């Protein structure tokens, strides 16, 4: 799966894209592949304050739990309610319909320290090389 060039990425495998002052956040295709079939997603309620680098939720497969780290700080506007009923969307469309939360950023400058698509793809290529050595 290609990594959208307009998105930014973290080393914890989250992505973030900003449109009209609202940032949408999700996990990458690499992350969903590592997790396996997603069975449950735990997300905070609207109004919650996210802090860059801090955990704001978790994604569960049958045998593992993965915590999600906020790529940037902001106030939570909406959590993706569709994931409660269909958590598998995270596996099939992690960069689109599998979005996790929409956030109103409080410090957009934080985005500049994130990876762009090319840097992220290089990062995971390196990880995959390490794993198979």
């Amino acid at each position: 799966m290609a990594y959208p060039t307009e998105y930014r990425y973290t080393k914890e495998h989250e992505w973030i894209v900003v449109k009209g002052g609202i940032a949408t956040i999700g996990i990458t295709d690499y992350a969903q592949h590592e997790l396996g079939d997603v069975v449950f997603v735990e997300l905070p309620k609207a109004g919650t304050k996210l802090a860059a680098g801090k955990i704001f939720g978790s994604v569960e497969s049958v045998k593992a739990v993965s915590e999600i780290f906020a790529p940037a700080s902001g106030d939570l506007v909406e959590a993706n309610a569709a994931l409660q009923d269909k958590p598998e969307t995270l596996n099939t469309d992690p960069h689109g319909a599998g979005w996790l939360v929409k956030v109103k950023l409080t410090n957009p400058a934080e985005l500049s320290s994130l990876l762009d698509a090319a840097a992220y793809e290089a990062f995971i290529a390196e990880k995959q090389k390490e794993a198979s050595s």
Partner: protein
Amino acid sequence: MRYLPKSPAERQEMLAAIGVKSVEELFSTIPEAYRLKKPLNLPGPLSEPEVIEYFRARAAENSVGYTSFLGAGVYNHLSSVITDTVLQRGEFLTSYTPYQAEISQGTLQAIFEFQTLMCQLTGQEVANASMYDGSTATTEAVLMAERLTGKRRVLVARSVHPEYREVLKTYAKNSGLKVEEIGYTAAGTVDAKELQSALRDDVCAVVAQSPNFFGAIESLPPLAEAAHASGALLVTAITEGVSLGVVRPPAEADIVAMEAQSFGLAPSYGGPFAGVIASKEKFVRQMPGRLAGQTVDMDGSRGFVLTLATREQHIRREKATSNICTNQALCALAATVHLTLLGKEGLREMAEQNLAKAQYALQELQTIPGVKRTFAGPFFNEFVVELPRSVKMVNAELLKEKIVGPFVLGSAYPELTKHALVCVTETTSRAEIERMVAAVRRALEQPL
């Protein structure tokens, strides 16, 4: 030794295959200074007949031949020999936790049936596969309420079993929970006024027991309403599960913590028993303990698996809903078989017999001058009476007649100095009830 399937020759063969001369070499990583030079000073070895003789001798030193009127959280009930026949099957007795579902379907389906029976009994939507006992189930239910509400105060009724409250305090001390007690009324039930004035928006759980420690049945709907109005959850503890055969289920409770000992588990001097947590579906991800879920295999056949394991310690580790690993699976199986044997009609009939026997005992005791019923209001198979003289003295006299008398309430409730908690189940004959009443009458007639 008969449990070790090795001959001396085989041991030698294996040592040779490994490439060592003696088994001592296999312990070389233990520093010499700490390796024992002599055998442990332990009794035995005993042959099988000698093992049996040792325990028979101990059994003879206990209460064989006595009739008991004790309840207080552990109850004598009839059970079928078939329960043991099933439990003793090696495939149930000696099997492991069903993590490998393909070769544990027997255990898993039985757990699924247990979970179903517990829901049916309590009027709740989901139930787990067991906790250690009713006391720890109650404590874990409170911790669950804390996780669900994020609040830190707990209001627990004094009419909840004293040892259950002690356990809650032990666990609460270190998790930052503040536990406060709510008194009981002249009827022996939760003081709703006191509860209301204690309730604020910082309470995670209101804990009540029904039938409570005094045997009185609590009215749960007003307690639930009061709790919910303040954003708290109602936790209901049940120590005598047979009551559910004739008493309406605690459907208004948010979380039920039940002790399943009454369902075919021997009193066994305090354990092993089986606790259960039953609650609403929406709370299931905060429920501790194992859960068996229905699914299909690759050929479409129905099967069962342990599920929602991400709540548990082996995956969540420090963020787990509980540290519980080993539970009371075989005891839960015993309860499942027992309840299946009793069935709908059998459980109802057993419950009705308890009701009748306890009423009869109370009625007979009240014919003794000076013996007073303490709490008015409906009860199941336990009730409190006040005696004109010390309960301890009366019990001492009863012992001489090979009767184990009622529970002395004064030890747990200092304000109930002359009160006794009498329990009568379907196992106590009319003749024994009358014999007990006559003995109490005689004890009270004795000159001071």
